[in-house]
Each structure stands twice: as C-alpha cells, then as structure tokens.
C-alpha cells in the first residue's frame, strides 16, 4: 500500500527567510504524481506545486520549489522569502497514474508558522 509520511508536525520560520518541509513516501509504482497542498484556516485545500515522477527536473512555482529524490522516495518543499500569508497547514500527497481511480493519498501535515 502507498503511504505518505511527514515527520515534522510543526515548523517555524522568520519572515523573508527560507524553510524546507519534509515528505517521504512509499510506493512500488514507477509512475505517479506528487503534490504539496496548503490548507489555511478556511479549510480549503489549495494546490501549491505538483511534480510528475517521470520528470527529473524539480518543479518550481515562484517562491515554492521542490527537491524530488525518486530513488530515496523523498519530496521536500522549499519556501523562499517566506511571507506572513504562507502560514498554514501543508500536506504532501501522492497520486498514482493509471488505474481505476484518481484518489490522493495525504500525509498528516506540517503546521507552518511565520514569525514577523
């Protein structure tokens, strides 16, 4: 069974600094997607960044980038120039490619605090 592990329940960063959130996963599949979602107090899950496993290049979206290590099954999120609005729960998620469903498997989340 596929699993996603986030070992950091809470993290804190100073405004304008850089923080890295960790995620590891377990799967026997060779093709899949990995995601980072942000969940603010409004509860709505917002997609931050997505990585296709077959792509060697790490995905980037403005201040957000990932370090994808396929062999190590590691998928960390780096937030540069942290802003107060980045404070939220962050969830790492896995989704297989193919098969009969499109369901996401989430980790337990990391609560990020941004200090002014």
């Amino acid at each position: 069974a596929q699993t996603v592990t986030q070992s950091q329940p809470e993290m804190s960063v100073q405004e304008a600094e850089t923080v890295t959130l960790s995620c590891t996963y377990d799967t026997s599949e060779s093709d899949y997607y990995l995601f980072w979602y942000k969940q603010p107090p409004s509860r709505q899950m917002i997609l931050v960044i997505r990585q296709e496993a077959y792509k060697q290049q790490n995905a980037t979206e403005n201040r957000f980038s990932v370090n994808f290590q396929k062999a190590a099954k590691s998928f960390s999120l780096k937030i540069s120039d942290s802003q107060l609005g980045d404070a939220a729960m962050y969830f790492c998620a896995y989704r297989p490619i193919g098969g009969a469903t499109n369901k996401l498997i989430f980790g337990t989340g990391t609560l990020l605090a941004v200090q002014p």
Partner: protein
Amino acid sequence: GAGVSQTPSNKVTEKGKYVELRCDPISGHTALYWYRQSLGQGPEFLIYFQGTGAADDSGLPNDRFFAVRPEGSVSTLKIQRTERGDSAVYLCASSRSFTGELFFGEGSRLTVL
C-alpha cells in the same frame, strides 16, 4: 459556479441521527471526490464519482455511509445513525477530467455529540 461549494459549513448533530452533506462542484467538472479529515490528520479518500456513477467507493468506512450524484453534478454524502467517531471535516473536490487538477471546497465540519 466559480468554485466548489459545500453546505452546510458546520453541522452539529446528536449520536444516532441522520445527516446529509451537499457538494456543488465547479460547472463542467465530471469527476467528484469526497474526503474525510479527522482532527490532526490529512484528508482520507471516501468515494469518487465519474459522472453519475461511483467509480470507486473503497474508502467508505462502513454501510452507514452512502453518497449519490444523480444528475452528474451535485453530490450528497449521507451518514446514517451517526457516531461520535464520525466527527470530522468532510471535504469535496472536483476536477475537469479523470487526470485533471482537483479543486477543493471549504468542507463541512460535522460534530456528533
């Protein structure tokens, strides 16, 4: 609509009661998902609809849970004989296609006393 809409936003009920939670997906999105998020946990998959049919209901925890999407748009998650352990945020998401990006609603928080 502009986004995924879920009602009610909050629901408090007593143990043993019946509850319905509604999800109105983004217009034109054929795929619809229900997830359950317990306190301190990540969302867990419940059921996936493609059009009107439930393509995967493997995440429903037991037969007290049921979901429908009769016209391929709005979906209702139904919970019979609620238990305190059913207390959670129930999230709905939709996507344009089977492989498309998921767009989530703000969830319905269910509290069973």
